[in-house]
């Protein structure tokens, strides 16, 4: 394709070298292209100037379409004009030059690229011109708002790059717990004490929080960025934030505790390697939490495949760091967690206080806490073994969010790569829409990068796709190994509530669709997986069953994926696709 284009262009050039000028369409098109070229060079070069289209076309005519000469001529002319005007608005031309192309040019650019012409260049240009073109392409990257047709892939061997790269180990953890247990505040404290957030911002939050009479929420505001969240003092959606210790880069996924937002919490937990369960130790609140989301969240993260859990017994200052209280909570929670399927060696308890910061990053100097000699919360986080990811499997990434990144990146998606790897220039396939897109650029943990592998949190800036094809919950894969869209699946689930053929919501990370249990195939033995009873009428809580779930719309799902079924605001089952 591109070779063909080059040929056509050089043919055109021969044509006008002969000195003929005829207004045939090809010629016109070429003129358009040259005009654009000149305009761009004028803008990109130094000093940057603006010329009208007719001026440019006149100049081109006089110089027999020689771009370089036209540019020089126009620049000389414009600079003179500029100097005359300089006194009046000194900064004006410059800002105009850097702020972006005029609407007129945008249209032209779009037109020329629509015709299949890259704004970089006829290949038969002299060597001297190449440098100008390089500048130009650089300039184009900064300036252009139109979609670039081609993004060059560097054809990296991502896996070997990955093994060569000496990065700190990176881990995600989800912060879960009952509503008002102090999850956001505890994490805000962690970020503040580790200097991941500056004092000035913190002071600002403190002032603003006090203004609306919610002074104690100031730390939570570090993560609760939404206006609604701040006004109500409740986390609604997950917030991610990262901080570094000496050895590790941690990404916090702060989950909402309120029962209405469990779907968001599921999305957060699906990105986590391990979990921090925050428990309110104050009298009454612990007990109500254990019945509420403390329990549901713990069950959920376990069924999402999380092995390790750190229990932060928060608000210990409100019970005067009472050791008995701590022991009581430890005993109750650990017995519950073991029944939920966590191994005792993977459960750790830390008594702490988010609001004062005791035992979060620094050991408490309160004499009442002298009985606790264990690790602080940060030490516990660091003691966690990293989790290995399937980097050599086919690419899978669930889209967490679709947004407009910036002027340069009008369409960006974020998420965590579940499996596989990708690099800039890759063509990806999004499911269920089945549309392809090109990765224009990507960011890993907020830093620009050329490649990314499973386990990393990435922002992909996409080109060549319409945003209506992208929804959070969609899956990114490759055309060579696509994920299938299914309308029904069989899964093996652990029932948390009675199951019978009924309507359910199906959750997989951000994916969130309505469906129905259409058949109860069998109840299974918990250990061996043997069939106990075929076609049960109802599945009792606590039993393992094989069920068939149907959905109205096709959804990208494949075995072995972990799914969660909810109905009427409660989690009814969780399990594995078969």
């Amino acid at each position: 394709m591109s070779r063909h284009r080059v040929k056509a262009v050089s043919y055109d050039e021969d044509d006008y070298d002969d000195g003929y000028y005829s207004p045939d369409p090809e010629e016109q098109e070429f003129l358009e292209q040259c005009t654009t070229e000149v305009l761009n060079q004028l803008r990109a070069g130094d000093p940057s100037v603006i010329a009208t289209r007719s001026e440019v076309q006149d100049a081109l005519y006089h110089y027999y379409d020689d771009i370089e000469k036209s540019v020089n001529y126009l620049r000389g002319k414009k600079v003179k004009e500029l100097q005359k005007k300089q006194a009046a608005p000194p900064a004006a031309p410059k800002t105009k030059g850097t702020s972006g192309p005029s609407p007129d040019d945008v249209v032209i650019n779009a037109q020329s690229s629509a015709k299949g012409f890259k704004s970089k260049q006829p290949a038969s240009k002299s060597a001297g011109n190449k440098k100008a073109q390089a500048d130009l392409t650089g300039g184009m990257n900064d300036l252009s708002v139109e979609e670039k047709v081609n993004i060059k892939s560097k054809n990296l061997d991502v896996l070997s790059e990955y093994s060569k790269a000496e990065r700190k180990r990176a881990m995600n953890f989800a912060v879960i717990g009952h509503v008002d247990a102090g999850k956001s505040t505890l994490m805000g404290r962690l970020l503040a004490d580790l200097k991941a957030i500056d004092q000035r911002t913190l002071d600002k939050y403190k002032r603003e929080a006090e203004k609306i009479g919610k002074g104690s929420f100031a730390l939570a505001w570090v993560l609760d960025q939404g206006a609604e969240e701040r006004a109500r003092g409740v986390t609604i959606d997950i917030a991610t934030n990262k901080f570094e210790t000496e050895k590790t880069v941690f990404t916090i996924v702060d989950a909402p505790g309120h029962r209405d937002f469990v779907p968001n919490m599921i999305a957060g937990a699906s990105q986590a390697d391990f979990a921090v369960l925050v428990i309110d130790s104050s009298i009454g609140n612990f007990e109500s939490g254990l019945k509420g989301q403390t329990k549901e969240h713990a069950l959920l993260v376990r069924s999402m495949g999380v092995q390790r859990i750190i229990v932060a017994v928060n608000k210990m200052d409100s019970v005067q760091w009472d050791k008995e209280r701590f022991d009581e909570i430890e005993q109750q929670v650990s017995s519950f967690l073991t029944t939920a399927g966590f191994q005792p060696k993977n459960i750790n308890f830390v008594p702490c206080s988010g609001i004062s910061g005791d035992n979060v990053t620094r050991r408490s100097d309160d004499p009442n806490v002298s009985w606790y000699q264990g690790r602080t919360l940060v030490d516990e986080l660091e003691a966690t073994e990293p989790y290995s990811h399937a980097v050599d499997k086919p690419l899978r990434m669930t889209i967490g969010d679709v947004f407009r990144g910036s002027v340069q990146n009008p369409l960006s998606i974020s998420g965590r790569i579940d499996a596989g790897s990708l690099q800039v220039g890759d063509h990806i396939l999004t499911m269920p829409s089945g549309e392809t897109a090109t990765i224009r650029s990507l960011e890993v943990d907020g830093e620009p990068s050329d490649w990314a592998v499973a386990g990393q949190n990435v922002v992909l800036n996409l080109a060549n796709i319409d945003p209506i094809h992208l929804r959070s919950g969609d899956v990114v894969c490759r055309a060579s190994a696509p994920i299938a869209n299914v309308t029904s699946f069989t899964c093996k689930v652990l029932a948390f509530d009675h199951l019978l053929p009924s309507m359910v919501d199906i959750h997989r990370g951000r994916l969130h669709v309505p469906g129905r249990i259409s058949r109860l195939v069998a109840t299974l033995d918990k250990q061996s997986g043997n069939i106990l009873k075929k076609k049960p009428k109802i599945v009792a809580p606590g039993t393992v069953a094989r069920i068939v779930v149907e959905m109205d719309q096709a959804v990208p799902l494949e075995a072995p994926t972990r799914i969660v079924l909810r109905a009427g605001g409660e989690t009814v089952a969780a399990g594995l696709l078969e």
Partner: protein
Amino acid sequence: MRLVKNKIELNGSGTVTLCPEEPEDMWHAYNLIRPGDLLRASAIRRVTTTQETGSTSSARVHLNLEIRVKSLDFDPQSSQLHVSGQIVNETAHTKVGQHHTLDLELNRNFTLEKEIGSDGEGVGWDSIAVQMLKDAVDEGGNRRAEAVAVVMQEGLAHICFIGQFQTILKQKVEMSVPRKRHGGGDHDKGLNKFFQVTLDTLVRQMEFNTSATALSTSNETVRPVLLASPGFVAAGFQKYIQGVASTSMPALKRLLPSIVVVHSASGYLHSLAEVLQSPAVKTILADTKYARETKLMDDFLDQLRKETNKATYGPREVESAVDQGAVGRGGGVLIISNRLFRSQDVAERKRWVSLVDRVRDVEGGEVRVLSSDHESGRRLDGLGGVAALLTFPIVDDAGEDEDEDDSQ
């Protein structure tokens, strides 16, 4: 629906003439008219005539056609019913045996005839059909269009109309709302856009008069509008409507008093069941048919959960329970979806009608026919369309044949 003429014979054959008055009546007609019935209604047919010279001319003519029904096509969204079949009466323009599709129209009579045939191959006006006819004919004139519900969550809204007999999903609004991000104000902007689109859609679907003059002149009653969502989305939407009403669209002020915000577990349509059960809604829509139906389904599921063996579901299981006499006097309730009576297969329909008759007349139990177009009916359909609350526990015979594949 208005009953114009009723000539049902004792043996179950006979004709009725009906006049549909409301869109919901089409749904009743859809349930009443079965394949094999004779339907007479006015029709417009394009007739092509060929002259002796070979030239053709076509004209549209108004006819009264009687057809033997072959199939029905019902569009719940626009409440249109198309009945196709073969013409049985001779007219100047049509021959017997030609095919025609009748479009039933509001305020135009149609006549429905059901036959039982000499050897009983038809079903005639059985007890279910007569009951449906009674339901359809609004004698006291006390039926009202019930409520509008918007079940929503961030980026998703279902606008539906809840009637006496059906819940119609009028429109689904789906938008991608950016999530909250560090330093991004996209989320609030996206949410506002979503509210705006939802409100526009709602107003259009309700055919709500938004002109400024409507505030003073119009005295039409506004239906209750239920806004349901998890979290704060519905409350936010209400606030948004208030905002719009006080600034750009004053006519919306008429809408404000009838808005009720309730909680639902998700923004999907099946959360409507929860919405209808909430106390706030119950007071507005007291004792409507669907409220009773929802209650009944909840009772049934409760029994099932308690594993008392006093509830069962599925065609075969229910039939065997009836055989054992467990669906009788003193609390036996047969719950059946009217989808089963719409079956194309005469034998299938007879099977269910006889079951219903038997429970009601012989066993003395209660029979509730649930509308498959309501949330509760849809839940029942998931269970195979038929369920029963039993008077005594019956043991599930474990030795059921393994190869049975009795799916709906």
